[in-house]
């Protein structure tokens, strides 16, 4: 479980996050949603340690990440898998090398076992016969899948996904959502997904935290989100015609 307590973050005079707290349980997909510029990605970066919160703490299964020493920081980071918005695959490495990278760098696993694990993860994300392809030869959806395979290859306890559906067609986006849900349940990870995609909210939002102008305005799940009376949340959820019709 990941718990955040009173997280605030500002850049120079601009405060981006205001006193955010919440609990992200293990084995379920936790979503952080909100319009662009509300601080979702900043919160995610605070969670994974790419940014340091001004105030507040982040607890990974009770271990305080914000005030951790270098050893504990490295230890926790090595339990984290992250899918970046642009996949962030290493351009100079092929698919197999990209997925194998965390094992190469963080473990002493024998090469044969590493390759078995890589192939297993690629199979889990529905990719085969792409081991030797370079990232530039892959489609957007395939890159995301490889990114997910890399994120889970080291038996990560915590899976973070930053806008996993951005730039994907609706069909591929749904496949990626299903994959994240399936992996979370199968591998029992604590998964946090940052998104503004309503499909994801409806499909996989087992826990949802809604941010508005850097503040947590609402939390709940995909069943409750369609029935709230909060104006800002309703504006966000029912912003497109299809959702309005559903309402």
């Amino acid at each position, binding site marked *: 479980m990941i718990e955040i307590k009173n997280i605030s973050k500002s850049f120079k005079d601009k405060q981006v996050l205001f006193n955010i707290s919440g609990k992200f349980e293990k084995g379920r997909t936790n979503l952080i949603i909100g319009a662009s510029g509300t601080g979702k990605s900043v919160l995610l970066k605070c969670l994974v*340690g790419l940014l340091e919160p001004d105030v507040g703490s982040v607890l990974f299964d009770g271990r305080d990440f914000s005030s951790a020493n270098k050893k504990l920081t490295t230890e926790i*980071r*090595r339990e*984290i898998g992250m899918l970046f918005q642009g996949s962030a695959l*290493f351009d100079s490495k092929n698919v197999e090398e990209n997925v194998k990278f965390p094992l190469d760098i963080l473990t002493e696993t024998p090469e044969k076992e590493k390759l078995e694990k890589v192939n297993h993860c690629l199979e889990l994300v529905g990719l085969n016969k792409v081991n030797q392809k370079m990232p530039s030869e892959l489609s957007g959806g395939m890159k995301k899948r490889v990114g997910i395979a890399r994120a889970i290859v080291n038996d990560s306890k915590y899976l973070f996904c930053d806008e996993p559906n951005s730039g994907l067609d609706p069909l591929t986006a749904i496949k990626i959502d299903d994959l994240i849900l399936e992996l979370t349940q199968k591998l029992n990870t604590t998964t946090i997904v940052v998104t503004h995609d309503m499909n994801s909210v409806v499909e996989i939002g087992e826990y949802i935290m809604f941010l508005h102008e850097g503040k947590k305005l609402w939390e709940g799940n995909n069943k409750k989100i369609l029935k709230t009376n909060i104006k800002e949340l309703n504006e966000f959820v029912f912003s497109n015609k299809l959702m309005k019709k559903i309402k």
Partner: protein
Amino acid sequence: MISLLERREKFRTYFSLTINECIKIGYDSLFIVSIVSIFMGAVTTIQTAFNLVGPLIPDYVISLVVRDMTLLELSPTIIAIVFAGKVGSNIAGELGTMRITEQIDALEVMGVNSSSYLVLPKIIASLLMFPILVIISATLAIGGGYLAGVLTDVITGQEYIYGLRYEFNPFNIPFALVKSYVFAFIVASISSFQGYYTSGGALEVGKSSTNAVTNSCIAILIADYVLAQVLL
């Protein structure tokens, strides 16, 4: 700089990365260094001959000038400028692209010290390869001067070799090597810094590459002056 030495990965990781960088930085620069050096030596020979024509000045002075200019200035400094243009811009561009496409963030999230993992092998490879490039450059420049001198009848082969040996100061070689180590460090560290701290998009990556080359060239020239003042 201190962060380069913290939280390092396994030795063999750095070993293979450094070998790869040596190939990229050293071997891949051989062609341009060779071309520049041969012509540099040839032009120095022709221009020295043109400026030193006179009955009182023996022809072997031409190769003596080529030798000293090559060892003291041309090979370490001009090749360092070329090195900054080729390798420095490449380092800054590569690291800048990795930064804006979140590849550096990906390393950090995995618990890898990205500055150490990405920058240290580049600095070590530059320190290993650039002095070798300077030695090759000096050899080729002197050879280029020989060819140009002999083929254009400016100087005979015997005179050229006599001039190369005449009043040779052996200290010029360690001086050139000291310069090459300093310049290699300057180019690799400035370019890595510019690339690693890129923020923004493709435009900023271009700016980082330009800044890497410009700042490296200025730093090389300042260091060149300081080293000449201190060591000669």
